[in-house]
């Protein structure tokens, strides 16, 4: 009995190590990929010097950040200044623990997976506000306040856009949500839940402070926003947290709207040999969906200018939230009638 328990714990630890390792490597190369994509969209080359095609650039950046001097402002609130990046980073990394990457591979298969993700994303807001406040700098403080109000506003729209998915799947467990999508001919909720998918995509951009909603770090007004005073590895924690947040948002979108690791049934009908493939193969399908969504992030960044703050707020409260409510009512009606 004890051996079983130890084996279980060992398995979980191994899974955690794999997920953290892969996620951090992924985050490092997401920055490289982003610079390349935006570079080519703006007819530049992007990073090219370090290694072939600049492939070693993220590692060089990481080493540089690691050896930078750690500067703490004289009047900063030290304990909070120390803990803010940790809160931010931990909250996004914890969210990874409930994501199913392929059939049966999830660190914690809990019944309230979706709610857990919301809880962790709301915890991340504390890292931002506290870092802004404890830096004792007006730029950081304004960035923190902006970010907090933005995250709270868009969290409502995001939560409500996923209610449609919850109604259709009849579960909050992420693996069950993926399996529920197999029942539909299109194999993904993005088609019947197109309104929810649209709202989710827009609020995901705002939740991760990405363009066109990156007002908390608007460099033309606020230097760098809430992490203005951070340097060295503390800054790197914010950076990693932000990109992990993007990864988590893309994964939620892939799981809840694009069918997770599965492909629509008509495709497996055309190519029956797909069903013979081992379970881990499907992680590639999942990653393809995640990458598509991440590419969309970069694409939007290279295309759209930044919104004004009042425009951001009115989009969130006056457009997305009423649309999300409408989506809930329509989905519930259809579910009852059919």
């Amino acid at each position, binding site marked *: 009995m004890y051996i079983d328990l130890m084996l279980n714990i060992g398995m979980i630890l191994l899974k955690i190590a794999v997920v953290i390792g892969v996620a951090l490597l992924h985050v490092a190369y997401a920055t490289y990929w982003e610079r390349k994509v935006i570079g080519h969209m703006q007819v530049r080359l992007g990073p090219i010097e370090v290694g072939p095609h600049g492939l070693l650039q993220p590692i060089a950046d990481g080493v540089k950040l690691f050896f930078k001097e750690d500067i703490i402002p004289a009047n900063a*609130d030290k*304990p*909070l200044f120390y803990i803010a990046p940790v809160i931010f980073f931990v909250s996004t990394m914890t969210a990874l623990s409930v994501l199913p990457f392929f059939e049966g591979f999830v660190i914690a298969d*809990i*019944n*309230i997976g979706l*709610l*857990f993700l*919301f*809880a962790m994303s*709301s*915890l991340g*807001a*504390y890292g931002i*506000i*506290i870092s802004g*406040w404890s830096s004792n700098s007006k730029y950081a*403080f304004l960035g923190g*306040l902006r970010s*907090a*109000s933005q995250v*709270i506003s868009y*969290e409502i729209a995001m*939560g409500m856009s996923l209610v449609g998915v919850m109604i259709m799947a009849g*579960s*909050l467990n992420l693996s069950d949500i993926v399996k529920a999508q197999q029942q539909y001919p299109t194999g993904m909720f993005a088609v019947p839940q197109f309104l929810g998918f649209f709202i989710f995509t827009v609020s995901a951009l705002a939740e991760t402070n990405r363009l066109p909603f990156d007002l908390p770090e608007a460099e033309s007004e606020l230097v760098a926003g809430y992490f203005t005073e951070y340097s060295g590895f503390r800054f790197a924690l914010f950076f990693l947290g932000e990109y992990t947040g993007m990864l988590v948002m893309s994964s939620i979108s892939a799981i809840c709207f694009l069918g997770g690791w599965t492909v629509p049934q008509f495709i497996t009908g055309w190519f029956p040999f797909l069903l013979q493939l081992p379970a881990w193969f499907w992680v590639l399908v999942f990653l393809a969906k995640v990458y598509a969504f991440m590419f969309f992030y970069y694409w939007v960044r290279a295309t759209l200018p930044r919104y004004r703050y009042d425009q951001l707020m009115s989009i969130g409260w006056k457009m997305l939230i009423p649309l999300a409510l409408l989506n809930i009512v329509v989905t519930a009606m259809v579910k009852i009638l059919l």
Partner: protein
Amino acid sequence: MLPELFFGYYAAMIVFLSVLVITRKNPVHSVMWMLLLFFHIAGLYLFLNAEFIAAIQVIVYAGAILVLFLFVVLLLNLREELQTAKFIRSWPAGLLISGGIIVAIISALRSFVLAPQGMHTIEFIKRETHTKALGTILYTEYLFPFEIASLVLLVAIIGAIVLAKKKTRS
């Protein structure tokens, strides 16, 4: 043994963190301890197999209400506020009242009897999932109180909007 240990940890931490929250001089630190306190309360709910309530505790209290607390605290002028030594002089009266309440609770605990077990046993909750069980009971047996609660919230929302509108006009 393990459940008692878990409960003991959560109970002790909740009391300890509550004391920390009310004794910090810096209100921002108070709010951060309160955040930790809310997470421990959520842990206690999880321990009671109430996973939905635990998640809602974190999302609503830690994620929304506490952020509003932080907003209010951040907009205060902290440097001046820190100088105030004591807000109230009548703390012996408060101590007396809370001591009396503790005595009343402890004496009431003696007549505590376990209620007979209903249909919502742990096995039932595990089979049905907590979210589903809670939703079913809220929308059937307790529909009327639920609707009253939502009406109260609606009144509060409308009230807030009316107050905010008046300020911008004048």
